[in-house]
């Protein structure tokens, strides 16, 4: 499964030689399920909450500023996917949270239509601090979590890079 997927996706394959790339997908599962959840709040919780807040902010910016809309809309979509993946991981570890505070919807954000610069800055700040927040636990997290967080860091960095 893993191997065929890698082989299919890694399209840039060696034309000659013994296909070293094909060795890259050992079928070892890195994901350890069933481990009991550690006490205290899950460190992914604030990362998920931030992703939800960023999505709301980016949608508000897109609505108020047509010039930023394509970029902000894409950011909102990506941050929403981050939140969904993080919530799924949170539920996997703790199917029934001890404090059943179901994730509250992120508060709506007012974005002034007459201040493009401020709107742009708010999005830059958001993706910038999202990178720092998601990068912090990468070193010590279980492999599958570290990979998820790393992709989120990379996604936010790529948004920052292509900001108009």
């Amino acid at each position, binding site marked *: 499964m893993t191997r065929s997927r890698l082989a299919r996706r890694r399209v840039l394959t060696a034309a000659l030689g013994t296909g070293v*790339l094909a060795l890259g997908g050992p079928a*070892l599962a890195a994901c350890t399920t069933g481990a009991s959840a550690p006490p205290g709040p899950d460190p992914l919780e604030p990362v998920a909450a931030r992703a939800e807040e960023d999505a709301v902010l980016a949608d508000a910016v897109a609505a108020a500023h047509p010039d930023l809309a394509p970029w902000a809309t894409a950011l909102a979509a990506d941050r929403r996917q*981050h939140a969904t993946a993080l919530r799924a991981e949170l539920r996997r570890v703790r199917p029934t949270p001890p404090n059943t505070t179901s994730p509250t919807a992120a508060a709506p954000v007012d974005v002034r239509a007459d201040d493009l610069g401020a709107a742009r800055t708010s999005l830059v700040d958001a993706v910038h601090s999202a*990178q720092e927040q998601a*990068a912090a636990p990468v070193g010590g997290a279980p*492999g599958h979590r570290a990979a998820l967080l*790393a*992709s989120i*860091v990379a996604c936010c960095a790529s948004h920052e890079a292509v900001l108009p």
Partner: protein
Amino acid sequence: MTTAAPDAVTVAALQTALATEHAAVWCYGLVTAFVPGDLATQVAEAALAHRARRDATERVLADAGVTPVPAEPAYRTPWPVTDTASAVALTVTAESDTAEAWRSVIERAGGPQLRSSALTALVGAAVRAARWRQTGGAPLLTVPFPGAP
């Protein structure tokens, strides 16, 4: 290196990452011939980043007593590279391949040092992929999970 010798899983992930870096270096060499002068800097910077990453990865493997995988003499591109558009599209593929390999290193390697270095590589690949999509006029510049298989 001050860290313990990487285990077999980590070595395999690093070798795969090195193989994709070899491929990326080769790609940028090919692409140079097909892009206009105003993209030369973007190509050169990307090529430099991949050569540096290739060299660093070779050092990590060699320090662990492992023979780094060599570059292939040539690579098969997923489509013929004949003009700027096909060349720019190839850069996105090369960056996506390296992103996937470095994410896999993060997933399978334990040490924070190695993960930190792999994260830098993943971020660099994702950023370059987004910039190349922008250069190529793609409607969507980012992916939600760079490097995810």
